[in-house]
């Protein structure tokens, strides 16, 4: 389904989603992030990209698996599977959209993750094509995506100035459009020509090149023991920015949080974790298979451009560029791949 939505009708459409929780980018504290849209307020889709990726909707920073307590000396476990309202997220950039099916793979492969899917099944992603790259670090096209890629999105919107072109990609997306059908107009030939032109132009901007992705995987395989890794990680500070902001990084930790040591009450909680932290792989004995920053940088890059490819036949990177832009010390995954490729 393809429709035209005039800018001023956006709110009319959003208002028809009144049984859903609607989120959209909002600029607060000098950063763009997804925020709840209160009924009767406008959505501002002038954002570049949100600082946090859309992954937090299905993989929140804190997920309680279950509560535990003791009754008559016997542990009683109460699972806390989330039961969210249907959630619609506007303004999702195509790079984030493409992150979603990659996360689906992870949380679905050998064992299905019920917490992830409880949220995922209720989630509708309304994408917004990038008419031009919002950062010189964008490289979606270098990893098989595009500024108007539909993969992972339920709806793709394209900004045509005074109006949006809106395309329902999945059944879920079409349904969300159906509900606001009165707000939409038909697509004229002129509209179609314009949207095609906007998409074409959006693809024509230069992006950071990576080159042949198969060759990159091969180069990474060959470079496992290369001294390059230590060199490239020389100034790494070992923080979690790159992975926490990444739309596809999904590593986590599980801990018991005790509420009362006397009653034995507590919660088992999943939190985000990060392959760049020193304790991530450290055995209880103190032995650490990835004990230095070089091996941890290698893990991050290999996971995305080698291991995930070997396991799932696609890169686990969608070229959003957040890890590059936000790295405090200028570590640049595209430059890393370039150096590995040249070595």
């Amino acid at each position: 389904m393809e429709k035209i939505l005039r800018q001023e009708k956006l709110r009319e459409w959003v208002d028809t989603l009144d049984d859903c929780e609607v989120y959209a980018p909002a600029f607060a504290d000098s950063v763009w992030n997804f925020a709840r849209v209160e009924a009767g307020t406008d959505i501002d889709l002038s954002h570049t990209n949100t600082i946090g990726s859309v992954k937090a909707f299905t993989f929140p920073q804190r997920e309680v698996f279950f509560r535990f307590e003791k009754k008559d000396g016997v542990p009683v476990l109460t699972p806390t599977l989330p039961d969210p309202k249907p959630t619609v997220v506007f303004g999702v950039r195509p790079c984030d959209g493409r992150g979603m099916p990659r996360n689906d793979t992870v949380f679905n492969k050998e064992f299905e993750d019920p917490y992830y899917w409880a949220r995922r099944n209720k989630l509708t992603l309304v994408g917004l094509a990038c008419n031009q790259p919002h950062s010189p670090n964008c490289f979606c096209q270098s990893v098989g995506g595009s500024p108007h890629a539909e993969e992972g999105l339920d709806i793709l919107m394209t900004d045509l100035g005074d109006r949006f072109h809106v395309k329902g990609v999945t059944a879920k997306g079409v349904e969300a459009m159906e509900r606001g059908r009165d707000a939409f107009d038909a697509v004229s030939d002129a509209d179609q020509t314009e949207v095609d032109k906007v998409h074409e132009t959006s693809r024509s901007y230069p992006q950071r090149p990576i080159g042949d992705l198969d060759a990159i995987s091969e180069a990474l395989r060959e470079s496992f023991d290369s001294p390059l890794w230590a060199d490239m990680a020389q100034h790494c500070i070992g923080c979690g920015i790159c992975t926490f902001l990444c739309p596809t990084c999904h590593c986590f930790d599980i801990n018991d949080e005790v509420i009362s040591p006397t009653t034995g009450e507590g919660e088992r909680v999943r939190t985000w974790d990060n392959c760049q932290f020193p304790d991530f792989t450290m055995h209880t004995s103190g032995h650490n298979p990835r004990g230095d920053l070089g091996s941890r940088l290698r893990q991050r890059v290999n996971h995305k451009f080698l291991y995930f490819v070997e396991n799932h036949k696609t890169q686990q990177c969608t070229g959003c560029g957040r890890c590059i832009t936000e790295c405090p010390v200028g570590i640049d995954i595209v430059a890393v791949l370039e150096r590995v490729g040249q070595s």
Partner: protein
Amino acid sequence: MTDNIYLPKIGRIVGIDEETQGARAIKTFKVEFPNDDGFEHDCGQCAMLSMFGKGESMISIASSPLVKEYKQFSIMKMGRVTSAFHAAKIGDFIGIRGPYGNQFPLDDWQGRDLVFIGGGVGLAPIWPVIQTAVARREEFGKITVFYGARTSSDIMYEADFERLKESVEVQLSVDAPEEGWSGYTGFVPANLMDKAPPPDNAIAITCGPPIMIKFVIQNLQALGFADEQIYTTIENKMKCGVGKCGRCNVGKDYVCVKGPVYSWAELKRLPQEY
């Protein structure tokens, strides 16, 4: 609704054996499922054990798959969770989810000689294989079990070893012998060289401290064992056990799913990340 992969079943400790003492003490726990919701497992698989309020730890299932009434775990006191296990008493409740990981390909080894080489708590992961092989004794050729501990009092499953001697060759060794010790004195790899089991039509299965495994494999190769004839298990830090949390990988393999059992031929192809 699918099964909740993170929700443990409740287990009850019905037996505790003190195997070794000291800073790295080992205890063996027998665990029953009071709610009759237990699971079957294969040789080499692991389970994620919980002490509620302390956390979870991935532990090899040390009992034979043929034993259905309980599961057995030998746990070395290492950190928060394992210390809680060592403080536990018979009747205490734990959480248990699994089984996780792959298995020793016992069916592929029919008709062959089996050489087991274990050291310290490393006997636990291969113990179910030994038990199963003994139970299906006629399917295999000669079976030899090498096992080494620091002292004779540190030998795990001591009572079971006596029974084992009836059907297989047992070669025990200690690093520091007491008076009256009749077995071999010295490290396991040396005992292996001393007895020199023939490699023809044989499979070697080893587990123990990393340094022991390293020398055992060197010595097996010196004895003429090919890489495909050598099996071992590896371990890495694990949190989820289901291939998602991202930390136990060795190259592209999540050890919790693709491991812990590897032939040396397979392991050589993986990067050294364990």
